[in-house]
Structures are given as C-alpha cells and as structure tokens.
C-alpha cells in the first residue's frame, strides 16, 4: 500500500536526462583541463554554463512536479 504522487515519478524520470547531461558536461571539462591545464579558466566558465543549461531541465521537472 503506497501513498504518493505520480508527479514525483515524473520528476524522477525527468531527472535522468539532465543527470547524464551534467555528467557529460563535467567529463568533457575534466578531459579538457587534463589536456590543457592552462585553459582551465575559460573551460570553467563554459562548463558551468553548460551545466546550468542541462540542469535547467531537471529543475523544470521539479517545478512541474509541484505545480501541476
């Protein structure tokens, strides 16, 4: 017997894609820094923008989970 909200399951599903995306973004960032440590400053900015962009989808999922 389980009580709960289907929206939570929906949010869980919506978090999969962004999770993978964030992983890819930071994997690429780490690779880049490992290859060219001096480019760290520039890469960091790009990495965090990419991270924010992918994370945005998961956050939208969170919002919709509560808002719908």
């Amino acid at each position: 017997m389980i009580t709960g909200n289907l929206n939570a399951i929906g949010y869980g599903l919506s978090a999969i894609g962004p999770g993978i995306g964030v992983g890819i973004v930071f994997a690429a960032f780490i690779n880049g820094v490992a290859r060219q440590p001096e480019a760290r400053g520039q890469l960091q900015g790009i990495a965090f923008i990419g991270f924010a962009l992918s994370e945005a989808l998961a956050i939208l999922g969170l919002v919709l989970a509560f808002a719908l």
Partner: protein
Amino acid sequence: MTTTATAPAPGFEAPGVEDFQLPPVFGPVTKPVLELVLAAVIIAAFFLVAVRKPALVPGKTQFLGEAFHGLVRNTIARDMIGGRDFVKYVPFLTALFAFILVNNLFGIIPFIQFPTFSHPSVPYALAALVYVVFTYAGIRKHGFGGYVRLSTWPPDVPWWVRIILTPIEFLSNLVLRPVTLSLRLFGNMFAGHLLLLLFVLGGEYMLLEAGDWQLKVLSPFAFLMAIVFTFFEAFVQVIQAYIFVMLTASYIGTVLADDH
C-alpha cells in the same frame, strides 16, 4: 494532482511538504525570517572583526576573511568575468556567497537545523536581484538592442539552425536563468532537508513507536545514515552556494563579453 492509494500507511507517516510549514515564532515572524537576520548579523560581525585591525601580516580572523574574499575574487570573479571589470562585482559576489553559505549551513547546525532556502522565497528574491544586476550590466555595456542581440542572436550560424537556436537562446538566457538559479538552490536545500528528516523521523519512529523489536534494533542504522547524510548535506550546501555565485559571475561575464 494527487493519486493516492486509499488509506495512509498505518503507523509511520513519511515527512513531506507540510513539515516545511513551520509555525510562527511570534506574530508573523517565522524561523526562516529569524535565520535570515541572524545570518546577516553573523556575516557582518565576522567581517567587521576581520578588518578591525587590518595588517599586512594578517591575524587568524583577518586571514579567514581575506581567504574567503580572495576565493571569490580570484577563483570565481576573475576567471568568470575577467578583464578589469571584475573587481567592481567582487563585493556583490562575496556578500552573496557568504549570505547563501551561512543560510545553507543553518540546515545542519544543531538547534537551528533548518536551511533557510528550503523555502523558495529568498532564492527567488536573490535570483531576481542577480537578474537585475547582470541585465543592467549588459545593457549598460552593449545598449538594450545590443544586449538582446547578444543574448539571442548567436553569430556565424546558418539560418535553419537559427530558427531553433534563437528561441532556445532567448529562453535560456533571458527567461530561464533566474528561474533555474533560484530553483536549483531551493530544490537542493529542500530535498536535502527532506532526506535528513526522513532518516531522523524514520529512525525515531522505528525506535519509539514501532511495535516490532526488529525495527527497534535496526533504528540505529537510520540514525547512522542521518549522520552520514548530514555530512553529505554539508558538502552539498557549500557546493550549492558556490554554484550559485559561480553562475552569477558567469552570467555577468557572458553579458560583458565582447562577442557571444
């Protein structure tokens, strides 16, 4: 929309949204409100003590304050904003970082134990403030048209890509930035606090209220997990404060950049 099974589970009721609705301490003043004021007072006091006797060879407090300021200044602001402009934004970023960090850490400090930003109000307000700051910076640098163009019109892109890309850029740069900024902070704090509540309340229920002796025996593991996740939460809280400021600096950096 809630799809509920017929009856609530007998006995244990998992913590939920209603646990975040704290009763007011007095009048309209609730716990988060007190925490906000406390955080501001703590930070101001710390930094004022740190610069009470400024010296080239710093004392302990001064060193801590300077290290904090230096972290925001040299790792976040200088790398993300760059150029000579970044110094202007360092006070804002440092204050923001300190304010968010202390409010987050209230989530694991004993007897306070409620992360202020698990209520979304202040994250909304701070994200709006950040939005105003970087929009103002962008418009002042490029003019209104230049700023919108910079935000929505990526250069050197074929027209058929632009059809897709421009709405995405418009959404992500001008609409979603403050939304995600605030909700990321709120969501992490909310989920983290919920997690801790789950383990603590669950352990308490298992120890005190559950009839089975097996559950009583297993309850220490719940408390152990609560402790482990408290450390994890400390990490997440610091990281989230860092990311908030990092993204703020990065947004300011992109709107100040000369090209896209």
